[in-house]
């Protein structure tokens, strides 16, 4: 079957594409040139339904001759997906992995990033690697999400993912346009931060959320507007191309033989997933919309880790010892939010809905994944970078902990 498809790709591509390419309108955008790699948009026109293959006595030659007349393209299998992606922050990398995974699976992807292609923000990962999306056959575009329609207009997408907005003002225009343009499925990256604190962890889909949270009003509006929708609530993530520091905070200290100051007991649980876990969950939702609809998914790996545990695992990945120092932010006089990159209380959700509804499996393996992360950390020379540790020093001085020079 794979061989047959490959043959089709090479022999019949021109026939297929002249027909379909007329639907591909250049994106008009004032400040950027459009990027429409027509030749690479092969991917989504070429899905052949298995039943078609079964009914023919298939040889590659037969396919080539039948192709022009009788392709039963199963459009239901391959999707056209639009990702509206934030231009900064911890969630930026989600759209990058999701785009690549969809493309590898043969779907068509447009990734629309907020802002301008020429902005400084685009010089940081994952944006500085968007060529990988393009060479895999995806399209990129930039603009104001409130005007997404005018940029990608003309396209009808099977699924639209908003991986940008945190409140209704920002996401509503995207939802409204998606609905009116005929998109069938709406997906939203929300946040597990909206769950109300509980005595009984973990946060499970359906648990009470803070009604005042911006994400909550977005989730509600999506539910009111779309027939087929799914909402994803992530926590923290690691992975190459991440826009925001995560494990690096620990590596910075471990590799310089500095103590790692952790607020509180260090027993607080958190969740750090490799972003490929988020991407695979999103991909399953696109491929199984009936299974995913009307659902909230905690978009996390299936193991929580203590703050002490993160420090230890980072040290193991770096092959170095770690000196964890606990402190009370109030007693020391620092703002924990500035001094430490994670929430200082239990922040622990489990991905139960994804497992039962989508058959999703987590592949995050922090020991292995952090090794890879450390290799990249060293490769880019960050271990040698001069860093100031002002807040650390304030904490350590208050605790009278010596710091090696």
């Amino acid at each position: 079957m794979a061989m047959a498809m490959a043959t089709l790709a090479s022999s019949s591509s021109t026939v297929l594409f002249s027909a379909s390419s007329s639907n591909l309108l250049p994106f008009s955008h004032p400040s950027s040139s459009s990027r429409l790699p027509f030749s690479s948009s092969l991917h989504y026109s070429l899905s052949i339904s298995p039943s078609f293959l079964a009914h023919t006595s298939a040889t590659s030659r037969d396919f080539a001759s039948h192709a022009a007349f009788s392709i039963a393209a199963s459009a239901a299998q391959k999707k056209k997906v639009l990702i509206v992606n934030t231009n900064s922050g911890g969630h930026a990398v989600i759209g990058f992995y999701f785009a690549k995974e969809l493309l590898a699976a043969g779907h068509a992807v447009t990734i629309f990033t907020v802002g301008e292609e020429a902005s400084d923000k685009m010089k940081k990962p994952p944006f500085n690697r968007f060529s990988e999306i393009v060479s895999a056959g995806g399209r990129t575009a930039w603009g104001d999400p409130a005007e997404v329609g005018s940029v990608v207009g003309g396209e009808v997408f099977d699924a639209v993912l908003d991986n940008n907005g945190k409140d209704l003002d920002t996401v509503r225009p995207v939802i409204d346009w998606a609905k009116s343009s005929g998109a069938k499925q709406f997906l939203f990256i929300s946040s597990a931060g909206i769950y109300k604190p509980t005595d009984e962890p973990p946060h499970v889909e359906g648990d009470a959320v803070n009604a005042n949270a911006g994400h909550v009003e977005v989730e509600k509006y999506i539910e009111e507007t779309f027939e087929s929708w799914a909402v994803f609530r992530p926590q923290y993530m690691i992975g190459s191309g991440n826009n925001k520091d995560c494990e690096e905070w620990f590596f910075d200290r471990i590799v310089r033989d500095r103590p790692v100051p952790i607020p509180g007991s260090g027993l607080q649980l958190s969740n750090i997933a490799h972003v490929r876990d988020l991407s695979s969950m999103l991909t399953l939702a696109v491929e199984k919309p009936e299974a995913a609809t009307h659902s909230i998914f905690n978009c996390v790996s299936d193991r929580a880790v203590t703050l002490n545990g993160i420090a230890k695992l980072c040290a193991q990945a770096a092959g170095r010892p770690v000196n964890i120092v606990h402190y009370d932010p109030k007693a020391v006089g620092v703002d924990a939010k500035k001094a430490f990159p994670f929430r200082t209380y239990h922040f622990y959700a489990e991905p139960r809905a994804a497992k039962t509804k989508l058959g999703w499996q987590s592949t995050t393996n922090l020991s292995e994944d952090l090794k890879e992360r450390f290799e990249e950390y060293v490769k880019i020379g960050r271990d040698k970078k001069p860093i100031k540790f002002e807040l650390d020093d304030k904490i350590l001085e208050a605790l009278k902990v010596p710091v090696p020079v």
Partner: protein
Amino acid sequence: MARVVALQQNQLSFSPLASSLSDFSGTRLQTQLQFKRKLWQAKGSFYVSASSTKKILIMGGTRFIGVFLSRLLVKEGHQVTLFTRGKAPVTQQLPGESDSDYADFSSKILHLKGDRMDYDFVKSSLSAKGFDVVYDINGREANEVEPILDALPNLEQFIYCSSAGVYLKSDLLPHAETDAVDPKSRHKGKLETESLLQSKGVNWTSIRPVYIYGPLNYNPVEEWFFHRLKAGRPIPIPSSGIQITQLGHVKDLARAFIKVLGNDKASKQVFNISGDKYVTFDGLARACAKAGGFPEPELIHYNPKDFDFGKKKSFPFRDQHFFASVEKAKSVLGFEPEFDLVEGLTDSYNLDFGRGTYRKEADFSTDDIILGKRLVSV
């Protein structure tokens, strides 16, 4: 495996009313029974039983888990024998159990008196009687299981009550059945038993509960909190109080033991069984207060390293995170805990402590040491 059996109605003692199952708030159990009832009725005089009547041996069964499990098994129509030394009464009426239900159960339950540490006796008595299924609820060491297996070469299933205590302590949680186990743990006997079962050809199933609670609990878990709440005392909790643990109601555990009986999907499998959600130490104190209708308790946190309590335990839980995922049991067996934490603690309170019954007298000596020192330091 379905067996075609010609059954007389009175061989199967199904209580027709829901009230007799009310101790278990057993909606799930009712559904199972109704399903079987319909099978029989639908087939007219030619009955097929979904789960055939078995001759079942429970090692233990007179103290806590077995008390509830044996009742479920008898209600399902199995012939159930309890193997105990006879030190505790073979049967006792459960709080809330009707006289007629208790009479029915007592008339059907069988007793095999003996000491399971007398391996020769175990082997000879079991082989003489013959059993289809063994539930080993009180076994601790692998040696204790060997004579049972030797005595019953045609055993259909050996169902073992192991413990989540076998898991190796980890910074990555929850514990799943595939996780590393600790060969040096206090529960290594359970591990060795599981290994023995694996090495023999027997069809085994192992259940790993976390902390079990419910009426008649002899381990002072909820009782420890109830004593302090009733006395109006503050609750001393070690360290931060954010340590996460997990409680599973004994009736849900009994139902899980039923779920694996004769179940192909349980063959040679290990299952964590406990509550659906976990709880912090602080949260558990608050949940116990809610369950007993007490006001929100005062919680005192202390550093256990500052004290020497001798042999006494100052707190009923391990001072660490300790909880296990029950997702495998849920997805493979369809296990669904019926009790959430506050409901389950309320059930325990209403049927046990709240009626004035408990297993261990209140002992506040370690509390007083903690409180004494704290008052001094303040």
